[in-house]
């Protein structure tokens, strides 16, 4: 059976086509004003990559912040659950998935059967999100793709603990004016975001093994710092971490009625 998953996040739209649990194709793109076109475009690209026609897709499931924007879905599913599903399918030893997205950090605990146990999100504050990293990198003129290289050069990370992402940004600028290296600043920003992720991790009392998902997880320096802080190894999975959500959604679609699984009601 061929199914598709579309993950409409706060920063990116991702689509994934799956056939009997195997990925056939996937695509991703920035969100923009014309979200419908972005979604359609991403979906089309994924289909092209998979080399199949739209009508061959039996079921489509959407997830993420804007899950409802996807038309003709079989059902929508929360992103924490999809990310967990995706990660577990790739590696059944996974018990915890930390999804580090554009604005939200979510950690999900699953049991040995891959059944969802519980999930937690960060406090309503953007200072611990991918958005904050993006804004800071912009402020000190580091391209997002080379954040890790810069961060590795830092000897003395400057840790920013401000609660407000925009104010934190002006703190970044102040530090630049004080002659602080941009390497130290970006390392500090990574440190503070990793700190927030680690707090969540602590809160859910995470079990091994751990997988990181989401756009932030694609920044190696972030993953390193997170590992250092929590003194745990994260498992690297054979798929770009941004894609877990869409992949998980596609798997959910294959499974059929999703609500039976893990239901607590008798």
């Amino acid at each position, binding site marked *: 059976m061929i199914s598709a998953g579309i993950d409409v996040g706060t920063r990116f739209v991702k689509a994934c086509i799956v056939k009997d649990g195997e990925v056939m194709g996937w695509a991703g793109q920035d969100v923009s004003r014309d979200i419908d076109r972005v979604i359609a475009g991403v979906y089309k690209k994924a289909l092209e990559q998979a080399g199949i026609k739209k009508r061959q897709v039996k079921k489509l499931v959407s997830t993420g912040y804007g899950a409802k924007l996807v038309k003709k879905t079989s059902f929508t599913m929360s992103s924490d659950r999809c990310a967990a599903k995706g990660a577990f399918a790739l590696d059944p030893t996974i018990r915890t998935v930390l999804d580090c997205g554009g604005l939200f950090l979510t950690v999900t605990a699953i049991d040995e059967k891959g059944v969802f146990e519980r999930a937690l999100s960060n406090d309503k504050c953007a200072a611990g999100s991918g958005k904050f990293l993006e804004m800071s990198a912009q402020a000190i003129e580091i391209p997002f793709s080379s954040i890790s290289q810069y961060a590795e050069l830092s000897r003395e990370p400057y840790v920013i*603990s*401000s*609660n407000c992402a925009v104010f934190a940004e002006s703190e970044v600028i*102040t530090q630049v004016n004080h002659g602080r290296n941009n390497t130290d600043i970006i390392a500090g920003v990574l440190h503070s975001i990793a700190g927030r992720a680690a707090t969540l991790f602590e*809160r859910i009392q995470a079990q091994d093994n751990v997988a990181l998902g989401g756009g932030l997880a694609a920044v190696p320096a972030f993953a390193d710092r997170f590992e250092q*802080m929590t003194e745990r190894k994260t498992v690297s999975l054979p798929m770009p971490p941004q894609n877990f959500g869409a992949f998980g959604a596609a798997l959910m679609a294959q499974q059929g009625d999703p609500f039976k699984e893990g239901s607590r009601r008798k």
Partner: protein
Amino acid sequence: MSDTLDIIKKLAEKDVNEYITQAADEGRKILGYMCSFVPEEIIHAAGMVPYRLRAVGSKETRLGDTYYSAINCSLVRHIFDKALNSEFAFLNGVVFMNGCDHARRMYDNWRNAFQTQGLGPEFLHMFVAPHTTSETSFQRFLDELRDFSDVLEKHFNAALTTEALQNSIAIYNQRRELLRGLNEMRKLPEPPIFGAEMLAVQSAMTSIPVENAVDLLEQLTIELQNRRIDGEGKLRIVLAGGAMEEIEHIQMIESCGAIAVADNLCTGGRRADVSVEEYGDPIAAVAKRYLYEVSCPRMIDEFDKRSASLEKIMKDYRTDALITEKLMFCDLWGGENFLLKQESKRLGFPMLSLEREMYGGGEGQMRTRVQAFFEMVRNRQS
């Protein structure tokens, strides 16, 4: 150059110091506490060393945040983070207080961490102080002090005699007298000490045994006799607010062209120089001092008194302006700021409110505000 001042400044920069380690080595128990209403004399009379918990040295609140949320005060988050990092392992007990909602919940959280993670120490006590100054409250407070003494006696197997309490009161009064002496000197046109340094002194004094504090303060008093800060062209300001530990923050304020000559900070000089009466029933004397003299915004029926006392400070120390310092999410100082602002309009003194997170940076914005404020004060004066 003052050697003692340097020693004291070093003490303020760290949480564990040789005096505390020495006291512990001599077998004295160290009891941590959280708030200015906790009577140090009673702890001392039970043969222990009261030690005020500070956030100093804390870089982040990662572990603290597993308990507290982002709308809780950064001071308690830092302190609890340190606790969870076993940085307060040298304590034999902690006394919490219903000072504010953030701080009093640490009693709950610490107990939880004790049960679930084995976070020491075992002795965790909630000390309750009333929010009003009525006779009824006084009687209740008196009772609470007696209960507190009993608890200490029982748990630590100590004998808390009237005589011991009188002695403790005497030595704490000695410390207060010395602080009073320093404060007198700060009234001079050329004070001997910067506000930032004075904050260090005051912070350090709550982190060492009182006997050492008295010794150090005596030396400091002598050394400061000949020390003068050129006050020429500098504004004299008074600081008011809740917990304040960041010496660099006050240095920043003073570097904008001012000397902080007085303060009403929770962890600074707030009524730190008001003595306990040395006659009559010592417990009642302690109760009087703590209930009526530690005027903090948590006391609901005392704003007029607080305002009058601030006005008196401003007059006695001939200050030009008031800066209030508030930590984010502090309801009590949020309200107090509002009231003081009204008072500043009524009485005509310039006032600036600063808000910050503990060790939270933001110096750039803060400096602009302070500098502009000082420029404004000068404009108004000329």
